[in-house]
């Protein structure tokens, strides 16, 4: 039972980061019906970017934040303006291959700009552990959870209470209707991409802080958000949270109980098994809309 509790708690800690990262995919999908396959690469890229600003350029934390926000905006704007906007009206395949090609470009840029072995972030958080009853977790994991919760709260405030959030929700509902009410839909798409890359970036930095800045593992971690959104349902923000925590917990349980049987490493692949099972059993996820199509 102790092992079970321990696994569930550490699963929730990881799952919070997954939930935050997958929020990015959901936001883009809700706004513009584009499924972003480049999410994993964006997670890795932003983690490298922040590492460069922080360690190589030795900038102060506030400067790093401003600089990253600016760069994220440039990325969001150019992705939307130069790649996805020209593809409007083309079949869905075009958008899918476009995000895959974008992933390719970003991966190549990472290889070009930051070649060689993995980097590490400087240690700023005390390395001790927190003990709650029989459950133990590190300060770092606890802090990650808190940061994710705060980022999530910030997003929900923005989405529910501000005018921009209202227009975003309107756009998600119906493009044409939103446009007729004077909502600048193209600008909303850029905002959606900005938020998505920001969430990916926060998730990426948190993950890289724990596991090191390393291209392949970070991309694989980011790709796990695909399983999160499929499990939670593509259109649902609540789904991203529930799905993220569920994937985190299931992954930890799978690793805890199955790893001794197969010899380790099962958490790399367990989310994808869940994804396939979800698609077989309940293709639209836990909270997604079931589509009724007409010819």
């Amino acid at each position: 039972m102790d092992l079970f509790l321990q696994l569930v708690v550490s699963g929730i800690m990881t799952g919070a980061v997954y939930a935050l990262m997958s929020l990015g995919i959901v936001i883009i999908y809700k706004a513009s019906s584009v499924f972003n396959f480049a999410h994993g690469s964006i997670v890795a890229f932003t983690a490298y970017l922040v590492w460069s600003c922080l360690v190589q350029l030795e900038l102060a934390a506030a400067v790093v934040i401003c600089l990253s926000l600016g760069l994220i905006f440039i990325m969001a704007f150019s992705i939307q303006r130069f790649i996805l906007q020209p593809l409007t009206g083309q079949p869905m395949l075009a958008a899918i291959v476009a995000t895959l090609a974008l992933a390719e470009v970003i991966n190549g840029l990472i290889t070009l700009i930051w070649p060689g072995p993995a980097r590490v972030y400087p240690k700023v958080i005390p390395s001790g552990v927190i003990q709650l009853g029989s459950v133990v977790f590190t300060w770092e994991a606890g802090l990650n959870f808190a940061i994710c919760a705060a980022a999530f709260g910030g997003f929900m405030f923005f989405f529910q209470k501000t005018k921009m959030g209202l227009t975003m929700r309107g756009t998600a509902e119906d493009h044409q209707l939103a446009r007729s009410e004077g909502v600048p839909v193209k600008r909303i798409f850029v905002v959606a991409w900005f938020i998505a890359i920001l969430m990916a970036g926060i998730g990426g930095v948190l993950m890289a802080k724990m596991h090191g800045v390393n291209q392949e593992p970070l991309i694989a971690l980011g790709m796990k958000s695909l399983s999160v959104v499929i499990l939670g349902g593509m259109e649902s923000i609540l789904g991203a949270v529930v799905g993220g925590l569920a994937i985190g917990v299931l992954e930890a349980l799978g690793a805890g109980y199955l790893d001794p049987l197969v010899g380790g490493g099962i958490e790399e692949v367990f989310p994808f098994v869940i994804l396939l099972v979800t698609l077989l059993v309940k293709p639209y996820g836990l909270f997604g809309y079931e589509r009724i199509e007409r010819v």
Partner: protein
Amino acid sequence: MKLFKKPCGTFDETYAQDMAPIRTLYRKFLLTCLFLCLALVVPLLANNYFLSIMNIIGITVIAMMGLNILTGYCGLISVGHAAFIAVGAYTSAALSHHLGFPFWATLPGSLLATGSLGLIVGLPSLRIKGFYVAVSTLAAHYIVIWLLLHGGEVTKGVWGLPCESPVILGHSLNTERGMYFLIMGFATASTILAFNLVRTRFGRAMVAVRDNDIAAEFMGLDVFRVKLLAFVISSMYAGLAGWLQAHYLGMITIEQFPLMDSIWYLGMLIVGGMGSITGAIFGAFAFRLLAQAVISLSPLVGQLVPALSGSSVAGITQVLFGLVILFFLVVEPRGLNHRWQVVLASFRLWPFPY
């Protein structure tokens, strides 16, 4: 049979003439020239370097035929094609390494293994379509690669499996030239097979499912069966490509089948032109030749831009290929094949504009 391809004047008197794949003497002449060029001129004149490029292109063409059937004709986007090729390669290598099968006897094993994998991966397509299929094949890619990596003694994990070079009637095909004949033979055969497959009832059923699956079902097609069959056929093509690759390279490791390759295959389909056999061939040639160009030009780039000299060819190739795919998506989504048709048409119509 008429001599030239003409907008009017090609009269077909029987149904068989109308349905014939080669309808003009001109086209027959062109195809014969192409065949002679591939069968005689290239192996006689080319050096080993050029032959090795042709061999890689041949294997790619076979894999592309499969992906074209699945994605181009049936509209199911597969982001896991590299994993299917990996399964074909590993099955062949494991059969010959552990059980001592001769190289030709491992081909049915490879086809069977990839075909049944395609059947399993295709199962979720019962209820999903569009990007959901892409996600499910992507997940299948991660799972298959993980299984191959953790296969213990059967796949030898990160070390990979050795694979002997093919022997036919006592002749070992361990040279580039020997492999060229084997690979090009299979590539030609699979191209002809694919060309004829998409002309059958099943081929038209796939196009119907791609264009509108609900309407196709309404017309009495068993959509799920068509989708599953497309998956199986496509993965068997991948199995053939993997089988050839294993015996051509002589050694297979898991690094030969990255996710990047699956994206490249999709990109080749876009660049070549989706849903046409010639397009798939164009795409394979364009990407592989571009990759060779990057490899041979990268020392020059390193001299011109010293900042890039330390970085690998892989990074430049990835960025370049990604940009090429994006360029084609935005500027010419119908691909090189469409350009080729435009060029052909302008020759035919010259000196009139249209």
